[in-house]
């Protein structure tokens, strides 16, 4: 097998938060021991509820912030030991699309200028070459090249997200990190953007990291899934496998809680819900962090933190004492 395009080993992140006005400073473990690989050309979805560390992980992977511990290799190069010029090159290889294009595009710059900026900073292309590249990229994302003169507010939500995707692709990155790219969009537009992402992935040979809370979207787009709960990876493996036969109880609950657009099926699974709320990441329970909400919890779960382990012949890893 070729070297994975991205390899994370034991990534950790902690933040120091002030507990109230005169409160004690506390450590928040946003991410604990995240290890996974992303193969070239595949798409990996990171799934979990708010506060589970999805976005922290994305910020570390895109080198917006360094991890507190652990190593990250992009195309076989360890970012911790690279020189600043290597880092600059690596940063162009991994680009991000954010949730709400209204907030991620500068409202005072025209679409053309927004798309031109990465080229101005990172390449030595002439003005004419840049203009050509912008026009061709707009076309690739299904927009009229004439829209380069518009400001973001003159575009619809779907068009804005297309611009954000175009901006991410201007430097021909190897990896695209998409943080909830369709959750702010209407259903009819959401389908257009999902189609576009799949198309672009093929055309540009992109590896994609897709952060989402919506399992129906994940099912549609991802090859592999990584389920997170309270800063830890609880289950990872092939998307089709996991969604059909979840092994971690939390994954099961997540699937059961996702509304199904089919009245007959929806009514069957009505009562499969989960009681309680996720505990605060500031004071996670001892042992398995899911044990207080888990139907399978036993004495062992209260004391011992489950490690990610293989439970069957597939590539799936599960962090649960009771999985088999």
């Amino acid at each position, binding site marked *: 097998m070729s070297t994975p395009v991205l390899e994370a080993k034991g990534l950790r992140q902690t933040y120091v938060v002030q507990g109230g006005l005169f409160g004690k400073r506390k450590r928040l473990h946003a991410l604990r021991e995240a290890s996974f690989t992303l193969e070239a050309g595949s798409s990996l979805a990171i799934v979990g509820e708010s506060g589970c560390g999805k976005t922290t992980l994305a910020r570390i992977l895109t080198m917006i912030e360094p991890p507190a511990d652990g190593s990250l290799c992009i195309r076989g190069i360890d970012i911790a030991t690279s020189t600043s010029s290597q880092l600059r090159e690596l940063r162009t290889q991994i680009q991000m699309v954010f949730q709400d294009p209204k907030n991620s595009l500068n409202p005072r710059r025209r679409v053309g200028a927004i798309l031109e900026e990465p080229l101005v900073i990172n390449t030595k292309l002439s003005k004419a070459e840049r203009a050509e590249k912008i026009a061709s990229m707009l076309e690739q994302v299904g927009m009229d090249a004439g829209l380069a003169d518009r400001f973001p507010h003159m575009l619809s*939500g779907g068009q804005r997200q297309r611009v954000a995707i175009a901006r991410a692709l201007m430097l021909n990155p190897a990896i695209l990190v998409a943080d909830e790219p369709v959750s702010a969009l209407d*259903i009819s537009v959401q*389908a257009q953007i999902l189609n576009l992402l799949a198309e672009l992935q093929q055309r540009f040979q992109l590896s994609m990291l897709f952060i989402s809370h919506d399992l129906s979207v994940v099912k*549609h*787009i991802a090859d592999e899934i990584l389920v997170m709960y309270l800063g830890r990876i609880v289950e990872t493996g092939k998307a089709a496998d996991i969604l059909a036969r979840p092994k971690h109880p939390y994954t099961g609950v997540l699937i059961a*809680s996702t*509304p*199904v657009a089919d009245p007959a099926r929806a009514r069957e699974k009505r009562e499969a819900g*989960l009681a309680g709320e996720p505990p605060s990441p500031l004071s996670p329970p001892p042992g398995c962090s899911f044990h207080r909400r888990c139907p399978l919890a036993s004495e062992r779960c209260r004391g011992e933190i489950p490690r990610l382990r293989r439970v069957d012949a597939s590539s799936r890893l599960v962090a649960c004492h009771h999985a088999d």
Partner: protein
Amino acid sequence: MSTPLLEIEDLCVGFASERGTLRAVDGVCLHVEKGEILSIVGESGSGKSVAMLALMGLLGAEATWSAKTMRFDGIDLLALPPQARRRMLGKEISMIFQEPSASLNPCFPVGYQIEEMLAAHTQLSSTERRERAEELLRQAGIPDARQRLKAFPHQLSGGMNQRVMIAMAIACSPKLLIADEPTTALDVTIQAQILNLLRALVDETGMALLLITHDMGVVAETAERVSVMYAGHQVESRKVEALFDAPRHPYTKALLEALPDRAPAHGHLPAIPGTVPGIDNRPNGCLFHPRCSRMQEDCRALEPPLLEDGDGLLRCFHPCGTES
């Protein structure tokens, strides 16, 4: 058949602007039976929230509205003096919103805010109000209700705040609860809990629930009847099973097909081309005709009327399931 709890016919809402009155809602007809769950579904800008704000009398001064009929529980709301109508709101009809943390007053404990509601609408003494508030929190599924009375909204999670909003909304045993995207801001496991709670309350108290949402999954799991809106028009309205099995309006059909949930994994999603027309550039004829796959000559020129169709309502010249 008994008289419906809520009966609205031909509701129109307009907003004054420089270019004349813009119609946000046009010709909406709704019937809600006692104890029924009706869902209004539509994309952003479809007028679903505005229609309900008109019913609640919560529209701003720049809005004008009219209706042929607006009756609630046998009372003609159009003929009711404003003070009497004001007294009904919160008591007979109450409403919860999308962002619970934004709907609660951050400066007062949640218990106080619930008691305020009881003070305005009931004759209870202050001790009785306190007891009732505690009971309501318990009814809304909040653990340690007595302690939580003193909590401020920022000390509670989003899900808990939504439960507080629900406790407040059901404080005076309303006959109708309007929930405007009540779970959109919440995580899926919490969303499932809140939807279960709302359904349980409908069963227990016999109130009717009018659920506004954009999420077809939520509709399938919760609603008994559905009304689909597009660009201010009601396009189709019928029982939930019939709507999902055999949608009659091309928009409903296209919307359901665009869901990743109902499409094969990794396949091309049948997206609806184009975008929802804005309030100031609505097309002539049928509002959906520029995006419709069944469009014919008459759709361009004439606006289809909202007519009875089977057990529901339909606004289309060339509905699906009939060959032309």
